[in-house]
């Protein structure tokens, strides 16, 4: 046997647990990534919306019925800075966004920041209430889908989320209007109080949010219930209330939080549609009008602000996650 036999080397004791990155470094890295995405989104939105044949000014004012002369058009272009090369415009636009100057609406000539500030409150009310209702609905559906008395009932609740995402949102709004206001006459169409006027839009916007939320919740609860530690808890004599409250809730929260960003996108889409259906003013309506009139500065501002909000929401979720799941707390321990 010629196996090389040698004593174990007396090297330095091995580092058993690799040093984990401290939370602060993780947070910094994550914030950096988020900033990068915001900058890239800004550039993309700018390029996308300025890649129009000709440019925004021509697109907006060149139609014959406005009857502007080429000289007038050129003057407008200079006034809006559209005669500059695209990268100068990008720089100017970026500088403006950083200082809160979002440009001027081509349609109304008003400051975009003023327009957005004016339309934000009603949309926030709509989206906030809608989201709250959606959360309540989703938790209700998920709980019923998991713990309802009979198999038949559980299946019925399980089929709700796929059903909800298959129905056009605008149609939900119209049908609600038709049934609640016109058939049943519960909420007046004209001269409704501000609170009354909110009811149907809030329900309309809540449904497409509740569906994915409920779906993810049901799935997360299913996953957690299948975990061995739940079996162990049952072996200790735990009943449904204990299981749901102590074992499942927190474990199911994290996967649910991770779709917060996606839901935000749904809220924006919901606001555009809902405000159009119910003829409400707000950010969604502003956006829809901007598209209809090709009002590029307004659309660009809405896109960039939404992207920033999306990134901030996801960042918050990532930074919040360690508070929910201790396994994510990678701190250097003394």
């Amino acid at each position, binding site marked *: 046997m010629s196996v090389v036999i040698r004593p174990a080397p007396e090297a330095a004791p091995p580092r058993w647990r690799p040093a984990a990155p401290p939370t602060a470094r993780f947070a910094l890295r994550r914030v950096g990534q988020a900033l990068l995405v915001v900058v890239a989104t800004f550039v993309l*939105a700018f390029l996308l919306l300025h890649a129009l044949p000709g440019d925004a000014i021509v697109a907006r004012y060149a139609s014959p019925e406005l009857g502007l002369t080429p000289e007038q058009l050129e003057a407008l272009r200079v006034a809006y800075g559209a005669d500059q090369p695209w990268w100068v415009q990008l720089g100017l636009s970026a500088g403006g966004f950083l200082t809160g100057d979002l440009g001027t609406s081509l349609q109304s000539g008003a400051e975009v920041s003023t327009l957005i500030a004016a339309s934000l409150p009603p949309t926030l009310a709509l989206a906030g209430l809608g989201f709250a209702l959606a959360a309540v609905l989703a938790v209700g559906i998920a709980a019923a889908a998991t713990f309802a008395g009979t198999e038949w009932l559980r299946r019925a609740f399980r089929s709700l989320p*796929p059903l909800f995402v*298959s129905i*056009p949102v605008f149609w939900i709004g119209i049908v609600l209007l038709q049934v609640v206001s016109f058939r049943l006459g519960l909420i007046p169409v004209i001269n409704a109080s501000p609170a009354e006027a909110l009811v149907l839009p809030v329900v309309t916007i809540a449904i497409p949010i509740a569906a994915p939320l409920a779906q993810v919740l049901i799935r997360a609860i299913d996953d957690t219930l299948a975990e061995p530690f739940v079996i162990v808890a049952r072996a200790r004599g735990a009943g449904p209330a204990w299981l749901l409250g102590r074992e499942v809730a927190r474990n199911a929260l994290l996967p649910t939080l991770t779709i917060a960003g*996606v839901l935000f996108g749904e809220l924006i889409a919901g606001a555009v549609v809902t405000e159009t259906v119910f003829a409400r003013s707000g950010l969604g309506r502003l956006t829809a009008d901007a598209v209809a009139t090709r009002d590029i500065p307004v659309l660009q501002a809405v896109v960039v602000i939404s992207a920033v909000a999306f990134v901030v929401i996801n960042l918050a979720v990532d930074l919040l996650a360690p508070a929910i799941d201790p396994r994510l707390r990678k701190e250097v321990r003394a």
Partner: protein
Amino acid sequence: MSAVTSLLLPRRDEPAARPKPRATLVVSIAVLAIALAWAFLPWLFTSQDPLAGVAADALQAPSAAHPFGNDATGRDLLARVIFGAGNSLSGAAIAVLVGLLAGTAVGVLAGSIGGLVEEGLMRVVDVLLAIPGLLLALSVIVLLGFGVTNAAIAVGVTSIAVFARLSRSQVVRVRRSDYVEAAFGSGGTFLAVLGRHVLPNSLGAVLALAALQFGSAILQISTLGFLGYGAPPPTPEWGLLIAESRDYVASAWWLTTLPGVVVAAVVLAANRIAAAIREATA
């Protein structure tokens, strides 16, 4: 918008203890088949003209002669829904193709090459995801102009990121598997392993997503049509049909209700078929 739909896909490890009922799949296939037949051969299903109405029939409630009733200019609503299928479904098909081709290309490239290419491509995907789907679609529409095809492309663009993410994660999952390591270990070249193992095992989920996106695209195109950025009137398109009927919600319930039911049925059917594809390929 489209990111939401992918949540509906069953996962590979979905417990099979609760198989979905077969009957719903049969019904779903039937619904989709009818919708496709409407799209390709609309005149087989109705003798009515979708564009020209009979003034005397204006706002007639559903009857034997006009099962879906008539609209404000006396056009047969069922005929409009049937002829609208072509616009809505072809739009959805275009949208899915755009998302599937571009997204899968990005995802497979990122997942199989890895390194800086992956890093760069996935940051682009992050950017696409950061813009809410409807806003991205609207931006593309402003760029391309209104119309059914442009709306379809816009919807397709919004799903690129979802396809890219899913196909990348599938490729990465398969790449990490022991059998791919064994394939490389037995002397397989990159392309051989990609073709023999990685793609066949990754694409099932992507196809299921495509079916799901088909349903979702129908919804989104109808939304764009409803907002007025899709087909111009009087083209029959499902979203536009509902939009045009809004003024009559108080008097003619069928004008909005029935086209909406058709849209929901087709979307539900597509989603059910997507789930079946996922189960079969898992």
